């Protein structure tokens, strides 16, 4: 937020009092971006803004497609957004929250309030159809089936190769390049690929 405090100085505000006041810096960023200050009637637009915020680790899927935006509402003159983490230790959680805030501020939503909501726990069942298709086109096999039918040890799923569509695939490792992915290999086209794990 160093930009915000620099702007504070330009506007003659006290740099000490202005620092850390997210309400104020958010307003300055918004006016700098040229967007008008949003109000309650802009709730549908907030969703449109969020649809443009991509997951930093899978940059073709938006946070809305991923199903981690649980609620968008208006209270006390502020937009409120409930975000749920994908995994307990997902290192992208803070980055996603920062990017969500910035995108909303740029669109004129002053000092949006983000809530990290743990319950109910995120499930890949919440990934939209559009999100699944985008994953597949990107080369990541989308989660197969529903989490409700999971068993404790070693259940075999049918995972389709995102490159050639073959069902002849095998798991290389249950853990891939990020917590949410497993590593697979296609026995038909021989290409390796990421599989977005069902949780």
């Amino acid at each position, binding site marked *: 937020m160093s930009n915000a405090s620099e702007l504070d100085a330009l506007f003659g505000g006290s740099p000490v009092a202005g620092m850390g006041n997210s309400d104020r810096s958010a307003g300055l960023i918004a006016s700098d971006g040229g967007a008008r200050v949003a109000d309650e009637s802009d709730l549908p637009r907030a969703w449109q803004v969020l649809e443009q915020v991509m997951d930093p680790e899978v940059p073709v899927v938006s946070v809305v497609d991923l199903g981690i935006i649980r609620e968008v509402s208006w209270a006390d003159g502020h937009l409120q957004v409930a975000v749920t983490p994908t*995994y*307990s230790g*997902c290192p992208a959680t803070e980055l996603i929250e920062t990017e969500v805030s910035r995108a909303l501020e740029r669109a004129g939503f002053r000092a949006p309030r983000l809530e990290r909501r743990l*319950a109910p726990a995120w499930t890949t069942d919440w990934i939209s159809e559009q999100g699944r298709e985008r994953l597949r086109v990107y080369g990541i096999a989308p989660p197969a089936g529903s989490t409700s039918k999971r068993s404790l040890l070693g259940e075999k799923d049918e995972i389709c190769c995102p490159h050639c569509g073959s069902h002849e695939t095998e798991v290389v490792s249950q853990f891939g390049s990020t917590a949410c992915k497993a590593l697979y290999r296609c026995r038909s086209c021989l290409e390796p690929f990421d599989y977005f*794990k069902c949780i």
Partner: protein
Amino acid sequence: MTDNKNDLIEYLLRLADNAMINGQRLCEWCGHAPALEEEMALMNVALDLVGQARNWYEYAAELLADGRDADRLAFTRDERDFRNTLLVEQPNGDYAVTTAKLFLFDAWHLHTLQALTASKDERIAAIAAKGVKEATYHLRRSGEWVERLGDGTEESRQRMLAAIDELWRFTGDLLAGDAIQQRLAEAGIAADAAAVAAAWQATVEQVFGATNLPVPQPSSYFYLDGKKGLHTEHLGILLAEMQFLQRAYPGATW
């Protein structure tokens, strides 16, 4: 209610410290794992555990309300204040020891978290519901590796047998309940230690049985007790490394 609150803090620190110390130990494999896929898997598991630890620490910190946050609880408490089970502080040894250690813990962890999803404490239930999905993958992976090493080569089997022999004595500490957990379990907040132990036994028998690994007799008395902060000599060394930065530069951030 005050008693209940103190019990709850104590129980949360056990859950947090188990996840934290296990995660920290696993990170020692970073750059040293026998295969790239294994390294990624171990680091993913470690990341899940550290994330879960943070969730438990944050809740404990709110109840403690003494100004310490999750980081302070992890990085500035002394060895005697740690409540983790002895198993997770043990050195990684060879890959069979690491695998056996993870499997014995994962089985306990999954059954514990499953029980906690029904906790009357909503915050505990929420953290557990998130963790149970992750722990399911952890157990599936470590269980498969126990089987793979158990009926791989003659050497891998010997190493797995030696690993079980080395670690089994810590399982008594892992499974034991105490008055604190008992009171919380009766209040519908904590997992029932005996029920978790029975489910753990069934999982261990299933996985060991798949490759004819003998299941040792239940481990009984051990002279140390992780829940009381009485640890093996390995924890202090682990903490010295884990806590160095915050001890040398208190409050450092980046």
